[in-house]
């Protein structure tokens, strides 16, 4: 029920703030903050610090990721940056370089 979709051919350079789910299929450079879930689909490029609720990452993310809930790195994801979240899963086949902070 995501109401915001940044399509595959869309590039946003700057700051994106959303109170709802955000699905990224295209490119975001700058900053991305959502109150709710963030999905970075396979093929998407995010060069930004990302914050929000539950996150599903399958694309390329360069930047720090902060979630109030869980972060899921799916197979094929490429994440360079620190991840701060209550829960994290890294699937077989996901690429990840950075620190994990689970706030224990």
């Amino acid at each position: 029920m995501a109401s915001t979709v940044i399509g595959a051919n869309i590039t946003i350079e700057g700051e994106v703030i959303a109170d709802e789910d955000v699905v990224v299929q295209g490119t975001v450079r700058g900053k991305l903050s959502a109150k709710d879930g963030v999905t970075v689909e396979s093929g998407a490029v995010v060069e930004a610090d990302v914050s929000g609720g539950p996150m599903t990452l399958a694309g390329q993310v360069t930047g720090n990721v902060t979630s109030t809930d869980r972060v899921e790195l799916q197979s094929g994801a490429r994440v360079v940056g620190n991840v701060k979240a209550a829960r994290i899963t890294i699937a077989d086949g996901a690429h990840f370089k950075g620190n994990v902070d689970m706030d224990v």
Partner: protein
Amino acid sequence: MAQAKTSAARHVPRSTSRDAGVLGTSVRIRGKISGEGDLQILGSVEGDVVVRGDLTIGESASIETENLEAQAVTIQGEVKGDVNATGPVRLGRTARVHGDLKGSEISIEEGAQFAGRIEADFELPASLGKR
């Protein structure tokens, strides 16, 4: 009103769902948006918007821009800044536009608020063009 309908009917939207982008009502963007596909903006944008496809600006949207470029542009919301369309520009009933409009054809529905200049590129009929 009739004019608006004609222009909307004449323009056949290319619906390619994969290319389409939607920026929801609660979304605020400060920066530049560019792209090849169609885009629908329902939230608020501060910055330039340059897309190759069609641009739809919903009633809930508010845009402050230096430059807004697209093919067909449909505006139902608030726009402050210039609109440069290669296709038709349509201002719906709820549109509030402050800036110049450029497009292949321009239509303004009853109820729309508009302050600015209109520049429409069109070819004169041969009989008029020769004069």
